[in-house]
């Protein structure tokens, strides 16, 4: 499968990194590491942006990260009208920065910059899927 079910609104239906979606359906948020130069990327890249090699490995982002910054979106763009309000966040993981929504399980009063996060798949309405931050 491709990216057609990714996110509330998907923009990419055909891309070389579609293994990402297969892993996501199987419960794993995966990044890529170049076998040639060792550079890690999230979002994953089927071809390495640093050395341009196509020889890359997938690895799961298992560790805990930290919340670097977040913002509350009250007014969503097209396709996201029914999602708002939602919280967008930046999480810093080992060598990787991830931009994702904060899980609705986390109450706004409990959000603290620096709090521990994990990233995991989230099922959305209409059979769609994305990834989000949960408490780590």
């Amino acid at each position, binding site marked *: 499968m491709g990216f057609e079910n990714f996110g509330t609104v998907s923009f990419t239906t055909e891309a070389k990194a579609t293994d990402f979606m297969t892993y996501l359906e199987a419960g794993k948020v995966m990044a890529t590491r170049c076998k040639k130069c060792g550079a890690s990327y999230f979002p994953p890249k089927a071809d390495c942006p640093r050395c341009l090699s196509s020889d890359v490995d997938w690895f799961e982002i298992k560790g805990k990260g930290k919340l670097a910054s977040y913002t509350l979106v009250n007014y969503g763009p097209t396709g996201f009208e029914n999602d708002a309000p939602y919280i967008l966040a*930046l999480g810093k993981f080992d060598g990787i920065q991830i931009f994702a929504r904060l899980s609705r399980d986390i109450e706004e009063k409990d959000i603290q910059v620096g709090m521990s996060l994990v990233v995991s798949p989230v099922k959305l309405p209409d059979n769609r899927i994305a990834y989000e931050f949960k408490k780590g």
Partner: protein
Amino acid sequence: MPDRNVCIIGGGMSQWGVREASIIDMAQEAAKECFDEVPALKKEDIDGLLFASSYCGRSAFQVNIAPVIAERIGIKPTSMCTRVDTLCAGGSAGIILATGLIKSGLADVMMVAGGEKLYTPQRWETYYSELASIDHDWDGAQGMGLPPPFFSMTAQEHMKHYGTTKEQLAAVSVKNRRNGSTNLKGHFHKEVTLEEVMSARPIVPPLSLFDCTPITDGCAAVLLTYEEKAKELSDRPLVYIRGAAQASLHSMSMNWPGEHLGDWVHLRTAAKRAYETARVGPDDIDVAETHDCFTISEIVEMEDLGFCKKGEGGPFVESGQSDFGGKLPVNTDGGLLSCGHPFGATGVRQAREMLYQLQGRAIRQVEGAEIGLTHNLSGLNVEHTIVIYGREP
């Protein structure tokens, strides 16, 4: 091929605001003001046109717009006629590209123009088109689309790391709305008080209404040529393009270079190169037009352009150092906060103001200004584009 000094000799703006006019109509208004500024220039002297626009294909429904504008303003380009798009920096990118073409001899006299028609009959189209300006596949899929949430995070991080206050953000708006009050070509002419800014309705906290640039229709145009031709065409003091640079990166997820969102490493990279190519430093700049898309932007720009120390942008602005009478006046024509921001037009508007400042004929003149700097930020902080102008080459 020759290596020529390049000068800016004329500038024009359409009326900016909420316009009942097409992008082509507004381009013509801006071009006319340009032509009127340089009466000795014949239309056939102009051999090239670069038109900066990002949304013309979307909200004005016109792609390959440069030849349409060339025809509308009655010029027949023979060197280069094309559209330039780096979103909010398209105008400055056009000026840099035209400088290279003229410097090398591939072009002699070029018009660099830019503009957007953003208020469409379906007004919501404007805002939602913004989604196309980010890394669509990943950041967009999460529901990041509009600039305010991103710059709200920038403001919060700056406040946290450096103690910047909401009053300091508001000081940028008060200054720029005051500067813009006499620039009747801009979108807003009404001054705002600190109290009005502080009590305005929130957009994305800590940013409120007057912390954000509006959505604006408008076009601007400037004329560039080589030094000898500039002397032939104009009796006004010569204004040279001394140096320039642009630093780019990509999405928030992948590649943010700073320690935090208030740390704009790529702006420092662009500034270093721009100062080197212009053979000046930040202390040499007499006047600047910087990209105040949000009040926090101007504060970070003061720091990372080298006008004050890192983290001191808030006090710098609040104490009037970026106002008339301070270290260097910034956004003397009102900036984005007053003039509005028809993306491709903004860099061209800044160039026009810099031309007027360095020729001593700006509406709010910085006395004796000899070296000026313009700066654009594009997208969700993915590019910084700088042009440095001077009375000497």
